[in-house]
């Protein structure tokens, strides 16, 4: 097993736990945490994809000069993407938590069983 596969497997495992939590936990906050796990797993997968064998962070300094950087750095694109994805995940989580607060004030419960008035 190589480095990429390890990260990918862990990432997918985390996502799977997230899915499991989303489908089985009755508490809204636990569901939100499960969602964060799912999201984080995906971010790990993204990072894993960007890994290049024996690569380092793509920041130039004395140790890493432009001329021979190719082959020494990991792919900067997934890093950039994951940065964006994390922030978006944060925004989504914040909004979800606000919804949880509102659901609680209107239904007086944090159980997902109280949140199925709309159906059929």
């Amino acid at each position, binding site marked *: 097993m190589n480095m990429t*596969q390890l990260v990918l497997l862990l990432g997918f495992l985390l996502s799977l736990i997230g899915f*499991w939590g989303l489908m089985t936990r009755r508490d809204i906050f636990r569901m939100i945490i499960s969602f964060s796990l799912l999201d984080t797993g995906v971010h790990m997968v993204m990072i894993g994809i960007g890994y*290049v064998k024996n690569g380092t962070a793509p920041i130039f300094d004395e140790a890493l000069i432009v001329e021979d950087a190719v082959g020494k750095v990991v792919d900067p694109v997934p890093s*950039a993407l994951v940065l*964006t994805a994390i922030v978006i995940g944060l925004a989504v989580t914040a909004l979800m938590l606000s919804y949880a607060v509102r659901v609680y004030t209107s239904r007086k419960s944090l159980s997902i069983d109280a949140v199925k008035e709309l159906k059929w």
Partner: protein
Amino acid sequence: MIKRFIIVLALAAIAVGMYPLAWGIEDAENLSQIATEYVTDGADDLGAANLVTSVVVTYRGLDTLGEVTVLFAATAGVTMLLAARKPKKPGTIAKGKKDSGEDHSRRTGSELLKTGAALLFPIIWMFGIYIFVHGHLTPGGGFQGGVVITSATLLLFFADSDRKMGHTILQIAEAFSGAAYVAVGLLGLWFAAGFLDPRFLPAGEFGQVFSAGAIPVIYSLIGIKVGAELTGIVDTMRRSAS
């Protein structure tokens, strides 16, 4: 019981479905083509030492503008949700809770926390500013800086949950930094090669704070905006509970 079985089945199906994504992938030997171009030309093009920053702020600058917008929308959403008028009888909420017997009001922070927070607040602020100002040189940037700044405010709230916030300043900072970000993008469109092109400012000397064109400017604006927005979210959430 059947439901549980189906859930297990579904999880297994995910695992099977994702299996080729996890197993078939080897460590990459080479960079992708655009990554190679970024690595070889990025520093010359933009003059930023942190290549991820170049990608985030410039090459994929539209993503980042979008990202700021996402955060902005989320802040607006949180405000709309939580700043809604309170239910008329606040007592009804407490009744529904299991632990209604307990004192619902929050404790104020201990003396230690208060003093520590007051002491750390400016330092954390400074650190946050440092992070976004040096985003093009070191790992870091506007988001990270903004989050660090927010953590300082959060610390203050921990120490004193009833602390007043200057909303007008927050709003102006948020609106101004956002509009300025868009304006900087337009300057790139008018005075350089395209929207969000930072090269309308001189590239400067590689590795210095004042270099890489407008990248530090953009990152600073992002830092202010993210800081203001996250602080706004934290503040709204705090007030909605009290």
